[in-house]
């Protein structure tokens, strides 16, 4: 670009905004340093932008927010969710206390495990094996007691009658019933989930 050519207005505007690419910026800056007309135009644009940015920051009246909220129809939270929310903390301190209350009882257990592992021969693997063996043993003993009680009380005798009745139903009917349940159970679960999360209706704020 020689001295007789001037920068076009859009380039000057972009230069004043700081939006030229590095290459364009270098060329434009070199030209402005050598051209009084373009330098004056650039100053003019900068002054305009500064004046626009200095315009007063306008705000609506103090009553504006309440006037808007009085006309907004906010969705009502779902009653199930509202019930759950009643039990949940609403402040940061409340949440901290809840987490502490849940974590605190675990601390002695972890401390106990850590102490056990300091003993020779006790490792994470051996602890896991002991723990799972104890849990299985307890579950088996409990199940055994339930079956024993059932046999003594005669419930299983009644269950045998029910089982015999079910086995007499044609296989196609049983398969059809299972098919219906396979659709109905997930659909019910999904409906329950939506009911718990979806707002049930509209309530005017003013009410």
């Amino acid at each position, binding site marked *: 670009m020689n001295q007789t050519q001037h920068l076009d207005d859009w380039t000057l505007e972009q230069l004043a905004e700081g939006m030229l690419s590095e290459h364009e910026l270098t060329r434009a800056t070199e030209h402005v340093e050598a051209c009084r007309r373009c330098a004056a135009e650039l100053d003019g644009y900068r002054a305009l932008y500064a004046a626009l940015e200095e315009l*007063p920051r*306008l*705000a*609506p009246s103090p009553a504006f927010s309440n006037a*808007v909220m009085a006309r*907004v129809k*906010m969705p009502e939270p779902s009653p199930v969710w509202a019930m759950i929310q009643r039990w949940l903390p609403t402040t940061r301190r409340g949440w901290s206390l809840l987490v502490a209350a849940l974590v605190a009882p675990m601390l002695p257990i972890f401390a106990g495990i850590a102490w056990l592992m300091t003993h020779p021969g006790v490792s994470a693997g051996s602890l896991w094996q002991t723990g799972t063996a104890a849990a299985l043993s307890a579950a088996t003993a409990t199940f055994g007691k339930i079956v024993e009680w059932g046999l003594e009380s005669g419930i299983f005798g009644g269950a045998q009658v029910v089982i015999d009745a079910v086995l007499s139903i044609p296989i196609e009917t049983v398969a059809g019933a299972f098919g219906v349940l396979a659709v109905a159970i997930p659909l019910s679960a999904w409906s329950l989930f939506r009911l718990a999360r979806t707002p049930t209706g509209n309530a005017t704020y003013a009410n």
Partner: protein
Amino acid sequence: MALIQSTDHDLVVLARTGSEKAYRELLDRYQRPVFSLIYRMVRDREQAEDLAQETFVKVFNHLESFNPKYKFSSWIFKIASNLSIDHLRKKEPETVSLDGSRHATTAEETEASRIQVESRDENPEQFLEARELGAEIEQAIGKLRPEYRTAIVLRHVEGRPYEEISEIMDIPLGTVKTYIHRARSELRETLAHLKI
């Protein structure tokens, strides 16, 4: 949770579940810039408040139609801009004044209708000078075509990028640049006596 740290999208999600705090946080964030844009379009304080209220009521009562692919600010400014332009098409523009409504008949009414201006921590003399210059510039902005006015206010007063202005006004980026370029040219011409 401190809502002030939440994004606009998070607030919209919360508001959809009925959180009044989320609505109020969105209101706090956007009432000033929305009012400012509308006021500079319609140049009447009472109308600007009515239209700004309409904007928020429309937005809040139709939050379910907000598409999170776009910025919330673009959506709300678009509604504000459309309401302003519709209003201007029905009505002749009036003379702008920061000093109170022209419909005021008593000193109390004038004071009550004065535009609230947020302080920029200037001294009184600077404040008055800035106010006089501001009034001249407001007059000049008022003479622009509505489309040019929207574009220049969004760019230089509200600091929105060109791409967002294109979304707000629903026009191509090239057209935004053309409007802003023409608005700047007209403003410089009108304000030439101020050596701008």
